[in-house]
């Protein structure tokens, strides 16, 4: 048999590696760069690109009407993300470039700078080392659709575009209080952002063009242009209302900028659902399995299946079941790994619940090479759990399961013969919950990128939260 045609088992490490290092995104970006720049030496270019390793640096446009706080937000973001700030003034007042001097001459004649000159200045600035390695934040560029199109065609494309909005009246009023510190260009406000040092206060100047009429004129211009710019950046846009305190706007912008967009990378979900008993793990796992076709692995169920099938492992487990003792971790891991390494789990993905319950089990899971790539902790308050579990009932004759609050039995006859599972009493439930909460903090620390979901809502809402957690990429930490 030819070796190439024999069925090959793809070792589990490969998908995990690809996912962990974002290989797909890396290849995507490299291919994009190749297509945009079309270098004569593609391999050298690719090597340089990989060495630079700047896929994750910030590339942000900040757009907004005058007096919306663009400059403030841009400066704060720069400081926070350690990127370089580019504004139209920045570009013009650069004394080192011939283009900038030309632009300065035009600016001093009180004329608008032609778009192609602006683009050249931008390209020149962005080819500098600090912009390449640390990223850039563009403040107030592009202003018109023509500029936006030119920037797009030249290959400069941001990863995030933040647009600030506010009602016009607010903006006009706000603009009247604008003050500028001439030494470093920082923008202050008489009401909202007054500096604390008196020397800075004395230095502040009133900038030009903040009268009402000017503001109105500029606003009209802005509104004309922005509606034509926004469709150019469909998927990376976020509109933030700047009618809130500065800090709120800043934090919204920061969280958006640090989030990643959905990528097209192939992704096999390996989901771990953790939570106290009664938080709805089995239900969510069943929903996930049904919708996405991934394999639902419940640890307890798996062990019972082993015992029932009378396999060798099952015979090992049976005495523990009979004595009602905890099955030792080694056996559980063996059973789990044999199930999770089957072809269907590798192919479709799996959702695991009921394991691990403490830190040792989690480390065993890690050493067996079965680390999940999404971990969800379902938070449900104690009372909800008690309510959910203690009111469960079963009908012995039909086998139908009811809940006295959420799914009451239709007739009185059925209700009379309902029976409760002995493990659903309040004391037993409390014991189980305590056991979970004893170990939960250690487990949370062990896994990184844990997603917390409020499990106290109705199941489909919780399901949607879990879905969004699975589909959106995990947040990456920005290095300071």
């Amino acid at each position, binding site marked *: 048999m030819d*070796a*190439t045609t*024999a069925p*090959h*088992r*793809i*070792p589990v490490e*490969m*998908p995990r590696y*690809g996912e962990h290092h974002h*290989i*797909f995104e890396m*290849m*995507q970006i490299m*291919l*994009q760069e190749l*297509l*945009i720049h079309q270098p004569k030496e593609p391999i050298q270019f690719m090597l340089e690109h990989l060495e630079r390793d700047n896929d994750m640096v910030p590339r942000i446009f900040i757009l907004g009407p005058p007096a919306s706080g663009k400059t403030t937000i841009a400066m704060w973001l720069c400081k926070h993300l350690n990127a370089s700030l580019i504004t139209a003034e920045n570009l013009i007042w650069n004394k080192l470039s011939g283009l900038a001097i030309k632009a300065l001459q035009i600016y001093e004649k009180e004329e608008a700078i032609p778009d192609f000159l602006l683009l050249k200045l931008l390209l020149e600035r962005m080819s500098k080392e600090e912009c390449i390695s640390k990223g850039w934040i563009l403040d107030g560029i592009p202003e018109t659709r*023509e500029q*936006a*199109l030119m920037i*797009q*065609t030249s*290959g400069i*494309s941001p990863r995030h575009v933040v647009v600030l909005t506010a009602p016009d009246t607010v903006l006009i009023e706000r603009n009247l209080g604008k003050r500028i510190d001439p030494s470093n260009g920082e923008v202050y406000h008489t009401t909202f952002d007054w500096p604390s040092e008196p020397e800075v206060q004395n230095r502040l100047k009133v900038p030009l063009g903040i009268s009402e009429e000017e503001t109105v004129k500029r606003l009209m211009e802005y509104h004309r242009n922005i509606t034509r710019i926004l469709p*150019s*950046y*469909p*998927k990376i846009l976020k509109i933030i209302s700047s009618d809130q305190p500065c800090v709120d706007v800043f934090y919204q912008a920061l969280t958006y900028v640090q989030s990643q967009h959905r990528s*097209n*990378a*192939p992704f096999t979900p390996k989901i771990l659902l953790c939570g106290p008993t009664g938080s709805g793990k089995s239900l969510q796992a069943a929903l996930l399995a049904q919708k996405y076709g991934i394999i639902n692995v419940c640890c307890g169920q798996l062990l019972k299946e082993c015992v029932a099938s009378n396999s060798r492992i099952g015979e090992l487990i049976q005495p523990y079941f009979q004595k009602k003792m905890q099955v030792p971790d080694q056996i559980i891991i063996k059973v789990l790994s044999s199930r999770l390494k089957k072809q269907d789990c590798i192919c479709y993905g799996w959702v695991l619940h009921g394991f691990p319950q403490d830190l040792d089990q989690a480390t065993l899971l890690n050493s067996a090479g079965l680390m999940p790539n999404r971990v969800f902790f379902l938070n449900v308050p104690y009372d909800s759990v008690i309510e959910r579990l203690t009111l469960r009932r079963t009908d012995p004759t039909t086998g139908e399961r009811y809940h006295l609050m959420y799914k009451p039995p239709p007739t009185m006859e059925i209700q009379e013969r309902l029976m409760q599972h002995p493990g659903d009493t309040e004391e037993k439930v409390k014991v189980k919950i305590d056991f979970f909460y004893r170990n939960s903090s250690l487990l949370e620390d062990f896994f990184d990128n844990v997603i917390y979901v409020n499990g106290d809502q109705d199941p489909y809402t919780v399901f949607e939260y879990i879905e969004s957690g699975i589909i959106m990429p995990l947040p990456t930490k920005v290095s300071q």
Partner: protein
Amino acid sequence: MTSTIADSSPRPPGTYTFASRPRPLNCQRRRYRDYYGSSDEEPIRYGNIMYDRRVIRGNTYALHTYPPTSQPDPVELQRQQEAKRKALARKRAREHLRPRSPEPVEGRKHADVQTELYLEELADRIIEVDMECQTDAFLDRPPSPLFIPAKTGRDVATQILEGELFDFDIEVKPMLEVLVGKTIEQSLLEVMEEEELAELQMQQQQFEELRNLELAEVQRLEEQERRHQEEKEHRRQQQLEVLHKQNETSKKIAARAYAKMYLADLLPSVFSNLRDKGYFYDPVERDIEVGFLPWLMHEVDKTIEYNMLGRIVLDMLIREVVETRLNMFEQLGAKQSEVLPDENDKEREESLTTGAEQFIEGSQRSSQRDSQWDSQGGSLRYDSLDSAFTNQRESFERGASFDP
């Protein structure tokens, strides 16, 4: 010549020592018979040193020295005689007191018998022997030989002849038997031993041969075994290599297949991404947007400008006409007022001016509509005819600043 040697060894003061180098004695015999010219030396007499009175014999520590004068001292003589008499007396006393052996018994005689180890012949005659001596050349003094006095007397021996003590043949038999028997026994034993040894040797040899054969066999088998092992090891290594290669190939293929699947969506997603970013744009749309529409707008602008320009020119014409008419009417009115002074002039002027104003208003309203295209967009206000006209003129000038 005496030559004294310096005395180097420490001796107590007062002792006298004398040492001299050996020197040859003067030969007392003349060397040559007639020796002319040898009257210097005194003829040395030949003499026996034994009978030489000059040689001191006996003890030398109490010498009888003659006084320097030959005459003896009478006191000295007397003393010497007395000393003699005392000595004699002492001797007689001693003899008296000396213990002697008892007198011999009658008829016997004492005889002196020598009881020493060797008998000695006592003779009065002094035996004289001439001896010469020649010193050897500084030989070491040999050790003194043991003193063995010469044998004197006669040896007497006896002899026991054959057959006097015992009969040899008879006596010897048992001994001989024993001897011979022992000898034969011993020789038999020795022979047996030898035979046994020979036997052993043979056995050993046989055994050695067998062993050699077996050893050879063993070696051959060992060699075979070793070759087998090597072969096995070699085959095993080969097999391992093959397996390893297979493994690697399988892994590589798996990696390739996986990478292919993983990046299957790469190209479409890259292109769709670039399209979203606007790098790939629909050229027709872009061309329309960038090239056609601005031109269109510009042309529209131009047309409207021309329109406006036309209206302004029209307005100017109308203004000219109205002005001249007004002037004419004014002139007419002035002439008439000169002839008849009346208040109708004012009315007529007012009516004329209002009529003119209305006329101008109407034309200005139409031009106002057109001046919406004016980029300055200022509002036109007019109080009087003149300001209206000046505004018209300004608006015309402003309009003329458009670059068609």
